[in-house]
């Protein structure tokens, strides 16, 4: 398919003009060398700087130990080909003027991608030359021969220079090719790549599960003994997923559309079925999983709980709370004080579930106390002040002044596990039980968020988020409503804190850095502000794969870089997709008001053209919105 297109692109195309009056869908392809060289040079330079940054951050060297496909590709080298691919694909991106493509993609895209990719790869060539000739080890800790050897594949600087130009060009061309191939092929290709990457990343998880289910033999065939997929396994997986993607094309989307199109009880039943199926998987899965997997699941669960709480505050009510960790801390500490015998001042040694009542009350009070002064402030002042409160709370727990209560920097240790009505004992030594406890609380949190979102209060929150003045004019008591969001979020966070203290068995002020707040914020924003499914998916992907502030994820090699990645991800999400991975419909509309209005206007235009009447300009753009 793509070959046919390529040959078509080489044919004479005298009418390929940049005048852009391509009103028909089969616009002519561009001549292959009429490139926008300025754009290519700019993107290439940016990409090259990015490549040098990635190399000097030591990512390739650190991640080289983690194989994706045994002997062929490691995560380290993968980190060096992502940028050329992205740049090569990006440079072929054409601005659509009024929804109509300029020209048909063809050889033009591939050549442009190759040129851009070569420039990006050239960044590494430059770096290899620089490392060979200068010593900048003093400020840049990773300016080392190890990096040079990795870049040169142990074959000398000259080889490194040439090979990275070549790799860059090849990968960039592949990126450009992605624009040329038909959508179905692209989807199949992406599914294959993602399956390979995903199964390599999830290696420890799948191995663990397979051991639990007694199918190690199969796993040994897929995974090499020292990590990474075997070549045969990789080929089998790629082929399998490719076929699957080909067969399933459009069907998943169709099924989703069908469920969305259902009305009333039928739709509820479908949703209920989905939820029950997910719940069943989540209950059964840990039984087969080992300790490490359960530990991971428990950590993810704790962050789901935190993220659901923050989602109510940030996602629904639109209050940017940067001190959310304060409630996590208060929850942990109050649970510790109420249950542990070693708590310095008072130690009632209550059973965990009884203590939980105290925890909720205390955190609710703290939420009120912090919330009341800040709730009237402007959104951005509020963010900084809550950040200040979060830091004050940590400093108070840390201080000598209150060390008689909370143990200062020594914290509180030997916290007993949670006993569930004499049925089971939940403690950090048994991560499976922790996971079940977390799961139960997540279920509560999900139910609460879901019901609240669809209640009068939830609608009031969203009204306040969208326009406070109008909400007030509509008779909403904005102060009370926002305060309520703050407190509900605080209480959900305190659940997580209480479980955390029972799980870890000790609490220290160092566990409650502002960092934690930011990580939770990244999770919520990555998943999709205001969307429950999104927030859960966000926690699973970020905390599960990259790891939490202190908890390791599946890619333990990333521990040094995860915060860097979180930061970059936050910026990128805000620039490219502020509504998040799995957005809530309402939030998307809010964030893309103008684009939606424009789209609707365009749609109106084309519809008019099809109808054949020329009075298109009479249509109001806003009329198409709903």
């Amino acid at each position: 398919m793509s070959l046919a297109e390529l040959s078509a692109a080489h044919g004479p195309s005298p009418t390929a003009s940049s005048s852009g009056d391509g009103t028909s869908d089969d616009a002519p392809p561009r001549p292959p060398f009429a490139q926008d060289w300025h754009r290519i040079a700019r993107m290439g330079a940016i990409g090259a700087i990015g490549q040098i940054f990635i190399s000097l951050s030591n990512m390739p060297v650190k991640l080289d130990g983690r194989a994706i496909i045994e002997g062929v590709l490691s995560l380290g080298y993968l980190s060096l080909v992502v940028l050329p691919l992205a740049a090569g694909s990006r440079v072929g991106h054409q601005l659509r003027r009024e929804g109509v493509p300029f020209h048909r993609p063809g050889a033009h895209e591939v050549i442009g991608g190759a040129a851009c990719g070569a420039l990006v790869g050239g960044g590494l060539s430059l770096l290899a030359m620089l490392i060979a000739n200068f010593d900048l080890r003093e400020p840049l800790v990773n300016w080392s021969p190890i990096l040079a050897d990795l870049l040169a594949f142990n074959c000398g600087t000259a080889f490194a220079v040439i090979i990275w130009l070549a790799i860059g060009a090849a990968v960039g061309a592949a990126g450009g090719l992605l624009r040329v191939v038909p959508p179905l092929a692209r989807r199949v290709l992406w599914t294959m790549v993602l399956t390979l990457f995903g199964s390599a990343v999830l290696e420890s998880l799948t191995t663990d599960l397979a051991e639990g289910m007694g199918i190690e033999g199969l796993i040994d065939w897929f995974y090499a003994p020292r990590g990474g997929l075997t070549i045969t396994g990789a080929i089998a997986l790629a082929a399998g997923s490719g076929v699957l993607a080909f067969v399933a094309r459009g069907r998943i989307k169709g099924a989703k559309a069908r469920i969305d199109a259902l009305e009333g009880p039928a739709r509820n039943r479908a949703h209920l079925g989905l939820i029950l199926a997910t719940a069943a998987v989540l209950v059964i899965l840990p039984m087969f999983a080992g300790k490490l997997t359960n530990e991971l699941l428990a950590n993810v669960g704790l962050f789901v709980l935190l993220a659901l709480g923050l989602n109510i505050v940030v996602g629904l009510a639109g209050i940017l709370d940067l001190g959310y960790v304060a409630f996590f801390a208060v929850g942990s500490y109050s649970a510790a004080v109420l249950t542990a015998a070693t708590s310095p001042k008072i130690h009632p040694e209550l059973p965990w579930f009884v203590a939980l009542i105290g925890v909720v009350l205390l955190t609710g009070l703290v939420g009120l106390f912090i919330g009341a002064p800040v709730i009237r402030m402007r959104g951005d002042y509020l963010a900084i002040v809550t950040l200040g409160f979060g830091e004050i709370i940590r400093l108070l727990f840390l201080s000598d002044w209150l060390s008689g209560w909370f143990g200062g920097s020594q914290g509180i240790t030997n916290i007993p596990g949670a006993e569930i009505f004499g049925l089971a004992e939940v403690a950090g030594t048994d991560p499976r039980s922790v996971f079940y406890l977390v799961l139960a609380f997540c279920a509560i949190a999900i139910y609460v968020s879901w019901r609240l979102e669809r209640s009068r209060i939830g609608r009031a929150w969203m009204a306040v988020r969208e326009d406070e003045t109008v909400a007030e004019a509509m008779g909403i008591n904005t102060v009370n409503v926002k305060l309520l969001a703050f407190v509900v979020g605080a209480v959900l966070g305190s659940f997580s804190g209480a479980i955390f203290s029972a799980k870890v068995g000790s609490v220290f002020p160092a566990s409650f850095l502002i960092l934690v707040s930011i990580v939770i914020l990244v999770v919520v924003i990555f998943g999709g502000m205001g969307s429950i499914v999104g927030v859960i998916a966000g926690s699973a992907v970020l905390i599960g794969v990259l790891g939490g502030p202190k908890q390791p994820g599946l890619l333990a090699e990333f521990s040094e870089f995860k915060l860097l990645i979180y930061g970059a991800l936050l910026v990128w999400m805000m620039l490219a997709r502020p509504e998040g991975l799995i957005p809530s419909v309402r939030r998307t509309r809010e964030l893309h008001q103008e684009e939606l209005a424009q789209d609707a206007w365009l749609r109106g235009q084309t519809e008019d053209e099809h109808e054949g009447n020329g009075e298109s300009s009479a249509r109001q753009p806003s009329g198409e919105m709903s």
Partner: protein
Amino acid sequence: MNGSDVGASRVAPTGRRRRRRTRVDWFLTALRVSMIALVAVGLLAFIAQEINPDNPFARWANPDATGLTGAQFRGLVISGIAQGSMYGLIALGYSMVYGVLGFINFAHGEVFMVGAMTGMITSNKLADAGLWESNFIGSLVFIVVVSIIVSSLTAVVMERVAYRPLRGAPRLIPLITSIGVSFFLQNASVVLLGPASKSYPDVPDWVKAKHTFLQIEGAKILVIVVAALSMAALWYYVDRTKTGKAMRAVAEDAEIASLMGIDVNRTIVKVFAVGGAMAGMAGILWGILFRSVIHTTGFLPGIKAFSAAVVGGIGHLGGAMAGGLSIGVAESVGPLLILEPLGVSGVSQLRDAVAFSMLIIVLLVRPAGLFGERLPAEDRA
């Protein structure tokens, strides 16, 4: 775009607006009164101690309290002023950006950190070459220039990459972006330069020694003088030059300014560059004063500088400097002055908490800051 209305529900400080007092209002009033009472009681107890350490009021809350000697007190105030002038320099960047774009550039503290790091690298290179000892003043000027260039560039790139595409987005979006930028820059420093704390080379004796003049360390005099000079230069730039006029016009109303033929984008870039330069300068001063930098160096000073900008009234340059000085002095003397007489132990650990509390108190009692805000027309409530 709810840019203009977020502030609207804020109780206007002057405009009389009849509204029912809710429970939250009562709580806030109680909070304000108790905070002011706390400060007042602490101060009174401190004064009582100073008059006679044995009088009952001085011993009322903290039997072990000892007053400060005059020299101790002066030392605290001077180091407060030295730190505060650095906060003031950083606060200028917050204040200018807030004035022009109406959002908090959370990553500005990291620009300061970049400045301090650049100074560390350059000064160590100079020390290796032997120039640092032989020609200290010359090297200092050189590292200041390099650091100003690097931190201005950081700020400008930041604006171009992260903030310009978000012009006109809902207000919280650029704020969240700037949190991401801040996180990214901090951790970029970790992965590039390593996580350990790094030190500046040794400074000459005359910088370290206490001078006869008021018994102040040379480094502190240097910091205060340089900060004052930078402030004066900035004031001249903003108040007397044509570019400064353009900046003020954009801060007043960007749309009208662009109608008057001002290139708004270019002016905003200049604002970021100037703010970055001030932060870079502060970074060098920080390095000279404390002689060690780490990737988190920018975080707390950044937040405190923002507090300073708010305390002084955001968008107000003189206010930023005054706010910086007051935050610096408050966090330096506050713990010993107010908390110690109240019987709080280990007060020096709480200096950061005092700085944040000051921000909270100011926002509760006088949200517009000491000198009043100067905001773009659309942000005024």
